[in-house]
């Protein structure tokens, strides 16, 4: 392959960056087209996945990110301080409503869940999974909420369109 020599470059750039790096940025730095980057990354990922490497590449939050292979989780956890970051059931439900219905107001979330969500919402904002998007143009101008880039990272989504389809077509508004 023509750009095979750039595989190492891409790997080094992803390594240094830590966070997801958009293909466009890699293309600019390496002075090639975005489509070339996609090819290089695909091949690099295949190299990694088919060999005894400990790392792989994922596409998340609009960029490529280097990470450890999922099958090594047990080993890596021995070293990493793994915090129990699991979201509670109410938090997860609230988050899914926001994810699919954004932008959405607190009142609208409460209508769906049937309970107050103030505390859960605060928690989601604290965890950087949800943010304010602006205000709805109705009486009272309530705050509209939506998901963040951190949300995409937590759920391994490249962008918000990657969310799984809602199970019930009846409600597809």
């Amino acid at each position, binding site marked *: 392959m023509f750009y095979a020599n750039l595989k190492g470059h891409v790997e080094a750039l992803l390594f240094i960056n830590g966070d997801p790096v958009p293909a466009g940025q890699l293309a600019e730095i390496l002075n090639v087209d975005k489509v070339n980057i996609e090819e290089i990354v695909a091949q690099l990922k295949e190299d990694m996945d088919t060999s005894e490497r400990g790392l792989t590449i994922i596409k998340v939050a609009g960029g490529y990110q280097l990470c*450890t292979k999922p099958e090594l989780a047990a080993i890596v956890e021995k070293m*990493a301080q793994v915090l129990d970051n699991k979201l509670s*059931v109410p938090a997860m*439900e609230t988050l899914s409503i926001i994810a699919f219905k954004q932008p959405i107001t607190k009142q609208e979330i409460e209508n769906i869940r049937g309970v107050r969500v103030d505390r859960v919402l605060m928690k989601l904002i604290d965890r950087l999974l949800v943010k304010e998007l602006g205000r709805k143009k109705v009486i009272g101008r309530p705050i509209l909420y939506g998901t963040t880039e951190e949300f995409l990272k937590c759920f391994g989504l490249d962008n918000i369109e990657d969310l799984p389809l809602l199970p019930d077509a*009846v409600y597809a508004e």
Partner: protein
Amino acid sequence: MLDYEIKLDAFEGPLDLLMHLIEKNKIDIYDIPIAVLTEQYIEYLDRFQEFNIEIASEFLVMAATLLQIKSRILLPKVKKTEDETDIEDELDPRQELIDRLLEYRRFKEVSEILDQLAEEQEKLFFRSPTLIPVQYLPPTNLDIQLLLEAFHSVLEANADHTSLVSREKFSVQDKMADIIFLLDKQAGTILFTDAFTRSGTKNEFITTFLALLELMKLKTVTIKQTQPFSPIYINRRSEE
């Protein structure tokens, strides 16, 4: 007896409790036997041991809603006049509740899918970014003509001053601002001599000295010298 240990917050809300009852009794969600459901729901509420007013109110509102739906079903249909068709009457009184339950169930299912996604993602580990100092590159494609134009505009803006009032290069006002700026930058204290180190012309020295006197008069600064020939300091008086 186990039933009596049921706690209100075991359910996330009235909808959660309703879903629990529907699943427990294998009720068809599209055809809810409202009387049975209402009865069981209220029975559950009665059994709740602890009664947190704030949480309970949400459950009570639902109980009222259920009772209302039940009564609307039991009421004989109001006879309509020929022209009038009351749309509300034609709707199943349960429909709104069914819609809410379906929507609630849908998000419960979705949240489980998201939960799995998060679990997959938690198997991946990342590394924190390496900090590289940001380096700004010079702009590209600048034109020498632009540079020349910029210089001309500077000269034009400056023309009046330089030709007419060239001797007023240093105004007392500017120098006062200068000294204050220096003081602010240096945490309120500068050496007396620092106030004078600029272009070094006699004109400027005089202006600076006048500016300093003015600042002292305004009680903006104080001058201190601990003993003869030791350094003289200018201090900014803190505003009380």
